[in-house]
């Protein structure tokens, strides 16, 4: 028995060491110079009018990747929703309400967090920021509101919330297909309103990403209720 256990540990260890050796050799063999596509990316970003290279890559050059990643995020939310057995479990747990410290803190923090989320979206085109960062802050604000009892956790099963979760993806697809009407390709924003379209997509994505994060939190929290260790 113990010998068997010994052997079952040895195999993964050997495999992991072997893998480490192979990857180590590949990394050591890397050339010390080489920028990949960084130089043409930077030149392209300046020409396209989006000075922040990261945003230019995410929403312009490789906007298709981002479109599918947004789909991944919504899919993950749907996946977790499909696994959840008892949508009302968390609301019962939180029904007791929050203590005075959390309540006061949430009242003070929530408006600021909303402001920060909006700011992150707006500055996304020129500096660090954008829908993912804004969505993360928005999601955190939502979770605080849930925990302190200001928002009702049962919301995730409502029809309207499904719209909030999906609106980012739906509008993104719509904006992606819009150029086809005027002879462009998928995601080829027309130059005259490219900035507005990108901002519109980013704003609604922020909303959906925030809602997704809150839903993921609620769903995962309800599944641990059975443990009873609080």
């Amino acid at each position, binding site marked *: 028995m113990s010998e068997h256990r010994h052997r079952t540990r040895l195999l993964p260890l050997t495999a992991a060491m072997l893998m480490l050796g192979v990857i180590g*050799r590949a990394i050591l063999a890397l050339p010390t110079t080489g920028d990949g596509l960084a130089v043409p990316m930077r030149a392209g970003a300046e020409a396209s009018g989006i000075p922040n290279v990261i945003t230019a890559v995410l929403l312009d050059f490789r906007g298709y990747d981002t479109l599918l990643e947004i789909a991944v995020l919504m*899919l993950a939310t*749907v996946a977790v929703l499909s696994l959840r057995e008892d949508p009302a479990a968390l609301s019962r747990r939180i029904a007791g309400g929050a203590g005075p410290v959390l309540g006061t803190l949430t009242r003070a923090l929530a408006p600021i967090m909303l402001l920060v989320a909006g700011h992150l979206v707006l500055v996304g085109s020129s500096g660090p920021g954008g829908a993912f960062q804004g969505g993360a802050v928005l999601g955190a604000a939502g979770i605080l509101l849930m925990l302190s009892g200001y928002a009702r956790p049962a919301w995730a099963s409502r029809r309207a919330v499904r719209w909030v979760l999906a609106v980012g993806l739906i509008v993104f697809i719509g904006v992606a297909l819009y150029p086809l009407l005027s002879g462009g390709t998928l995601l080829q924003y027309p130059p005259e309103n490219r900035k507005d379209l990108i901002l519109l997509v980013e704003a609604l994505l922020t909303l959906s990403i925030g809602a997704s994060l809150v839903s993921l939190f609620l769903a995962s929290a309800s599944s641990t209720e059975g443990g009873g260790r609080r």
Partner: protein
Amino acid sequence: MLLDHLPALLVAVPLTGAALSFVAGHRRAPHVALVTAAAIVALAVALVARVLDAGPFRYAVGGWTAPLGIDLVADGASALFIVLTAIVGMGVTLYATAYFRTDDETAYGHGLFWTLWLFMWTSLNALFLTGDVFNVYVCLELVGISAVTLVTLSGGAEALRAGARYLYASMLGAMTYLLGVALLYASVGQLDMTILADTLTPDVTAATGLALMIAALVLKTALVPAHFWLPAAHGSAPSPVSAALSSLVVKGSYFVILRLMLYVIPVGYLGGTDVALGVLGSVAIVWGSVQALFQTRIKQLVAYSTVAQVGYLFLVFPLARLGADAFALAVTGVLVHAVSHGLAKAGLFLASGSLMSRFGHDRIDDMRGAARSAPVLTLTVALAGITMMGLPPSGGFGAKWLLVSSALAGGAWWWAAVLVAGGLLAAAYMFRLLAVLLADGDAVLGTPASAPRTEWVPLALAAAAVVLVAAVPLITDLASASNILIRAGVTP
């Protein structure tokens, strides 16, 4: 004009359907899925016509061509896999309307089947069209998460365990693939498959990266010995999901291996990987068939049959190195095999699901006399069996004929021997199942849980696989319109 945008629409339409089915609610979601499926079938047929007419074409998303942007590539091979997905997908959608009855309010997850299924369809189409190795990773994530969740929809401890195991295998595959792409990009600085094919020079980092990518995709395609997750996942999923997984999802990652091995990576760049894949494929054929022979539960038998049938897909790699004639025959043969197995296996899994709901259990030995009470389903199993065994005139026969011709044209009879042995082994496990179904006996049938009116769906799929041999000239035309054969400069 619209035809130029077919690659974009084949991704955007199912993605829109997925998002809309989520907000439509569980009563209207099936209608959204049916409309979406019909639209995809039309687009897929248009893509085949377009590729046959004008050859392969590229589509620069966002107007940025590679290397800065992502190019979608539509060629004969991608058109073929997309039309296979469209046909099987339509069948699965129709069957699922009865399987996931929307009035069943207790099944919370069932209302989400349609959204998950359309996400999976989106990701398969995207995988067949992408020309960018990083974009493949994003597609693999979408396929993986949707497939794992669909497996767990049947509920119960067995499905959750199988789903968890599938999730770990899937994640390990995705992460290994991403690591491979990172190494490749660090070394070469390119992500577009065509540019990579033109610029790859011998380099240990790039070779390691590509080897990791191939290994990850082999895990996702469930080639022996990386098949450990497949039988449990495909066997315990809801039947429409089993059909889609066995028929389509393993083909998604396989398609990328096909493009990498025969289009991107120069001959000999990864040493003897092509022969090694062929040997593993041969082992899979024998091992999967023998396992299928000893299964006592019907869906486990069908799942192990998939392990065996996946093996054939990997014989193309050693065969493709045996000269121009063998190359063209092997690629055409493996495309015919992919389509015929896709159709037959979807039919077989859906029929098994209907048999299970008719009998109320999945024990093969207690299904005696099914032929009398469920003749349509028994006929479906028989027709699917004809294709699996490779009997004439089925698509399976056409595939094996082409592959054997390829082996003989290349002077390597031993691969032909593997093909013949695989046919015999498939006959063994299919006859075992059929013998029980056709035996005299008074099967006690419960009330069918799924509507019998959907039983013609698996029959149509299995019958399509049998008459597929008539479509071999069409598939040959598509093969010669594939970038793999065009780049190699050979015509079938």
